[in-house]
C-alpha cells in the first residue's frame, strides 16, 4: 500500500476511523525540510503496508485540519489511534524512530 493523501474530504474516514495506527505528515510545498521528509514517509508507507496507514496532508490546501490539531511548525507528524492523537513530532524525523512509535501502537 502506498502513502495516503489525506484531505479535508477523507480525513475523518481515513485518519480518525478504523483500528489501525495512522501517521499523518503535515507539510507544505514551500518548506525545505518537508521535501526531505517526503521520501521517508513514502518509504515508511510501503514498509508498514497492511499494518498502519501512513500518509501526508498538505496544510496549504487543508488548513482547517492543520489548525484543528494546532500545527504551527512544519513538518509536524502526528500519530493517531482510534481517532485520538497519540504522539506528535515536530521537525524532520528519521524512518526508524517513526516506525518504532507506530509499532508501539499496534
Amino acid at each position, binding site marked *: 500500500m502506498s502513502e495516503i493523501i489525506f484531505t479535508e474530504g477523507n480525513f475523518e474516514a481515513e485518519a480518525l476511523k478504523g483500528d489501525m495506527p495512522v501517521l499523518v505528515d503535515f507539510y*507544505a510545498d*514551500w*518548506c*525545505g*525540510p*518537508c*521535501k*526531505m*521528509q517526503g*521520501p*521517508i514517509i513514502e*518509504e515508511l508507507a510501503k514498509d508498514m503496508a497492511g499494518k498502519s496507514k501512513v500518509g501526508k496532508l498538505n*496544510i*496549504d490546501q487543508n488548513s482547517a485540519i*492543520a489548525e484543528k490539531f*494546532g*500545527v*504551527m*511548525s*512544519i513538518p*509536524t507528524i502526528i500519530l493517531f489511534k482510534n481517532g485520538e492523537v497519540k504522539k*506528535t513530532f*515536530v*521537525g*524532520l*524525523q*528519521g*524512518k*526508524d*524512530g517513526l516506525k*518504532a512509535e507506530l509499532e508501539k501502537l499496534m
Partner: protein
Amino acid sequence: MKYDVIIIGGGPAGLTTAIYCLRRELKVLMIAKALGGQAVIAHEIQNWPGIETIGGFELMQHFEQHAKSWGLEIKSSEAIAVEKSETGLTVRTNSDSYETESIILSFGLTPRDLGVPGEKEFIGRGVSYCATCDGPLFKDKTVAVIGGGNSALEAAEYLSRLAKKVYLVSNSCKSDADEATVKEVAKMKEVEALCGYLTTEIAGDNKVTGIKLKDADTAEVKELAIDGVFIEIGFMPKSGWLKGAVDMTDRGEIKTDRLCQTSAPGIFAAGDCTDLGYKQVVIAAGEGAKAALSAYKFIAAKRGLAYRPDYGEKIK
C-alpha cells in the same frame, strides 16, 4: 556483516564522501534521518561551480541521485553512539548497531537553542527555528525574531511580508549582519528593532503568548505579547553524543587535520560539523572527498594493501 565505512549525515559532505567511497568499491552505509542537509533550505545557490544558478533542493537531489547510482545503502535513522570494538568500530542507533572499519562524520549543523524556559515546551507551538518553513503559518500575527546576524535579519525581512508586526530582538545593538541588509530592515515599518535586550523566557499556555525581555543595561524587564517566536541565533554541530570518542572544540566542532582525520584512528570528519572555518556546499563536498580518500587509505593500510593515489606515485 561489517562495513568498510559508515557515513553519518547526508548533506553535501556525506553524499560526496559516499560517491568517492563507492567508486573505490568500499562497502558503505549512510546513517542519516534524511538526505540533503541544510543546503535544501537554500532558495538559490549561485556558487556551485559549473552551474550559474540552481535551487538548493534541486542541487541536493542531483547529489542524492549520483550517490544512489553507485548503489548507496541508506538507513534513515540517527546515530547515538560510536564505540571501539574488537576488530574496528561500532555505530549505534536507537534500534540497531553496526560494525565498521571506519567512520566518516558529516552531520553538519543544527539551529542553536536559546536555552531559556519555555523554549522546549513550545517547539511547534509558536517556537520555530525556520522562518521560511513556518512563516506562512503566522499570517497577520505578531511575531518576534531573536538574533542579530544575517539569518535573523533575513527572517525579519521575510516575516514582515506575512506577519502584522515583527519585533527584532537582539542582545547587542551592533549587528553582525551585512550593512545592506541592516539598512533594508531598518526601513521596514512592520519591523520594530529592540536591541540591547536579552530574551529570558518564552511564555504561553497551550501555545506561545509572549516573551520576557531584560534590558542588558538597566536589567529592567518587559513582556511582549506575541503569537510566535523565531530563534535565529546561528547554528552549531549536534555533537554531544560523540563526547569522549573524538576531540572537539569548545563549540562542539570536531577537530580535524588537513586530511580530515579526527583524534580517533579510523574516524574521519568532513563539512560543517568540523572545525574548518568555512561553511559552504563546495567546501563541504571537497572535504567529503578528502575524508573518503583518507578512509580508503586507512582501510588499505589495515589490510596491508598498497595505497595508490590518483596522482601517481605509490605511498607505503
